[in-house]
């Protein structure tokens, strides 16, 4: 089994529970049965990983009743496991779904969850490894892997911006006395810097707007006008954009920035001093322009202290 973290199940379910190890063995057994992908028609996989019939293995630890076999009882849990997680990914990745279409997206999500089951107490983190998975297994998104990856990164950045940590904002007064050659600014943890080869920010917004229209239509009239729902959002054309996904006044925002501005922000995020970060933007950038950028970023509250210090002595 590929589930990282989840250790292999015992050969057979424990016949008695005497120790903590027995309890763990039983729980491993059942978890393996649950996280095993369903078949195309949402049945339990026919075989256990060692080749035995699944029904036989499940019957080792689950009792049947007068209406359901052990396998049928487990299937209630398995279906609910898969659809709970699938629904959560659907909710967090509407853009990716729009991009790939229902069938492809569903296959991607199932393959992703089979390889990377949840490792967090909250489903909020469920899509954290989706960009990595898209990179590792491009066949689920081909021939649109590049744009799919951009959308997945953008959508994960939204989750981070929604409820990520906000540190106390740095004000101009906080940094006034530190010379630029020593000043290191932190960026808010809720903020993501994305250099994207496709303008997926516009694309995701368009998909969300279309989906909202679709919901309105289906709420208003049961079998209402389908014009809104059929409207296709055009896949974006390749073009490099630099996007900062952030939060302001508790709302999500995406801000396109100039390539030079993006380089400054990336250098700051990497821990460079202010002087070196500005230098990273290259010679073509006017000082007034840089001052203007910093004034905006300060106003948006993007800067915070870096891990407990203002100036770098490292």
């Amino acid at each position, binding site marked *: 089994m590929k589930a990282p973290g989840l250790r292999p199940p015992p050969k057979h379910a424990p016949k008695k529970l005497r120790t903590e190890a027995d309890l763990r063995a039983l729980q491993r057994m059942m*978890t393996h049965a649950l996280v095993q992908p369903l078949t195309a028609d949402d049945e339990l996989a026919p075989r256990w990983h060692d080749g035995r019939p699944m029904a036989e293995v499940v019957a080792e630890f689950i*009792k049947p009743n007068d209406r359901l076999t052990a396998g049928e*009882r487990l299937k209630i849990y398995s279906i609910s496991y898969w659809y709970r997680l699938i629904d959560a990914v659907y909710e967090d990745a509407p853009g990716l779904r729009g991009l790939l279409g229902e069938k492809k997206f569903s296959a991607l999500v199932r393959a992703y969850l089979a390889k990377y089951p949840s490792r967090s107490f909250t489903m909020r983190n469920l899509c954290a490894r989706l960009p990595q998975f898209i990179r590792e297994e491009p066949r689920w998104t081909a021939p649109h892997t590049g744009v799919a990856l951009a959308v997945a990164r953008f959508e994960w950045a939204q989750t981070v911006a929604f*409820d990520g940590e906000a540190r106390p904002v740095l004000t101009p007064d906080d940094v006034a006395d530190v010379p630029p050659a020593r000043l290191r600014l932190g960026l808010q943890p809720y903020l993501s810097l994305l250099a994207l080869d496709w303008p997926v920010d516009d694309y995701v917004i368009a998909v969300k707007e279309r989906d909202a229209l679709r919901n309105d239509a289906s709420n208003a009239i049961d079998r209402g006008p389908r014009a809104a729902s059929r409207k296709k959002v055009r896949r974006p054309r390749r073009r490099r954009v630099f996007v900062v996904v952030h939060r302001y006044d508790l709302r999500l925002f995406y801000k396109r920035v100039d390539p030079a501005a993006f380089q400054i922000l990336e250098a700051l995020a990497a821990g460079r001093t202010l002087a070196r970060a500005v230098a990273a933007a290259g010679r073509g950038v006017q000082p007034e322009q840089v001052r203007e950028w910093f004034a905006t970023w300060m106003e948006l509250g993007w800067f915070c202290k870096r891990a407990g210090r203002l100036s770098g002595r490292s």
Partner: protein
Amino acid sequence: MPANRFNAFTDYGIGIGLRVPHYAHILEKKPVVDWFEIISENFMVDGGRPLHVLDQILEQYRVVQHGVSMYFGSADKPDRAHLRKLKALVRRTKTPWLSDHLCWGSVDGTFTHDLLPMPYTFSAAKRTAEKIRYVRDYLEVPICVENVSSYAEFHVSEMTEWEFLSEVVERADCGILLDVNNIYVSSKNHNFDPYAYVNGVPPDRVGQIHVAGHTKFEKYILDTHDHPVLDPVWKLYAHAIARSGVTATLLEWDDRIPSFNEVHHEALKANEFIGGARAANFARRALPKKR
């Protein structure tokens, strides 16, 4: 009995679960609600809107925390980072007590996000009770454990579910969040008498009660929380409060959530049974025993 050490000697009435679709209504209209139950995990975040909304709710209402991921019955040890987050939230909400489920749902750090049934064995009861004590000592707040609804039973079980629940709460010396809908659902799925269940748990440990709706399928009942409470569940509720005394009661409605008023109205139906239970309890205490 209603106010006891498992609910921090509070005397809360009828509450409802705080859910996202109702935020705007609650914050704007400020309806009278005795208390809200929050899902702890929804607010165990580092920042942003969820905590902002919670702080506004806390200014106006009494809030009790209900968790879905502590997994007292899991063989995994409690995660310290998780507990630290939870404790920060406990300090923020000042929840008088905290509830989570008598179940498991993760192993080796892999999470199913489900409330999976326990094997009802003495060794599992002992382990689970130790974990409850550990969590309570860390969080410094009384704990009530909730019985879950279930669809499967294990061969290794050595006792009934209510015997297991009793064994755990006695060993842990903690309270019970008695979910009468879950009892009813499981009684149908496993062919037992729901009244035997209610009669089988220590009544003085019940610190809170849940009611909810469920859905019937051909061969089993699913605990869907997307309906009004069904009659047999209200009857079981009446029986539970006649036995334990009237205690903090909460309606869970988690799916296909109707308007705030509809949910609240459904919750307040509990009053129809509370009056009767109070009268019966009063009569039992006030009237001289017949010889």
